[in-house]
């Protein structure tokens, strides 16, 4: 999904994902049609179904603050991550033909945050 420049680094854009998607950016989306995104207090979970695909046919990479997925060497998906994602903590699992990608929120975004009182 290509995000307009003025919207980057302002709001937690992944929670505006649905709204932005509906707002006529459909034509330039480079995410899978059946992508599901869940948001909880600690991060986001992305899910895509890839039935019949072998684990080694999927290549997932975080590069230039973006998530890049290559499927069977030809199909490519791309998702910019904005500034709320802990890119170093991104993880993924593939089982039963379902790819699940975990994007943790940067510490400052986590709801329960203990504050030391000096």
């Amino acid at each position, binding site marked *: 999904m290509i995000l307009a420049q003025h919207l980057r680094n302002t709001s937690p854009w992944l929670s505006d994902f649905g709204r932005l998607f509906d707002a006529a950016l459909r034509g330039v989306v480079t995410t899978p049609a059946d992508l599901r*995104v*869940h*948001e*909880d207090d600690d991060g986001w*979970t992305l899910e895509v*179904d890839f*039935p019949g695909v*072998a684990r080694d046919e999927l290549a997932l990479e975080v590069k230039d603050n973006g998530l890049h997925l290559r499927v069977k060497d030809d199909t490519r998906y791309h998702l910019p991550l904005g500034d709320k994602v802990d890119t170093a903590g991104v993880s993924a699992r593939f089982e*039963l*033909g379902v790819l699940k990608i975990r994007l943790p929120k940067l510490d400052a975004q986590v709801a329960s945050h203990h504050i030391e009182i000096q």
Partner: protein
Amino acid sequence: MNEETTCCETPDTENTAITTRDDRPRRLAEPAWNATRHDHGADIEVALPGVRKEDLKLEVRGSRLALEARRPDQAPAGRLIHGEPAPDGYRLELRLGNALDGSALSARLESGLLKVSVPLVKAAQPKRIEIA
């Protein structure tokens, strides 16, 4: 005195029931599938992502192939902010042509894809004719 017991009746059990997610109606989607015919029968592929062998029921009744699969509730934590929720499972019914022997089919589920192989009935199998 005629007292009507309108107070403090036991509330209707149906309306006060506390149910788990298992009681909500199941959304069974029709899965994507394709079939190819070849000299010895037909191969069918059915996309069943998230389905384990134990959750899949495959039945042949005459010329009908019936499939029902549950997709275990593995929805991630939090709320869905983009996309449609995955179906609770899948249901598919296919009719096999007369030349196909449904009772001799074999099936294999791997990585969310079901592959079914249905051979031809004996009478329809290619026969080599010896020329005397």
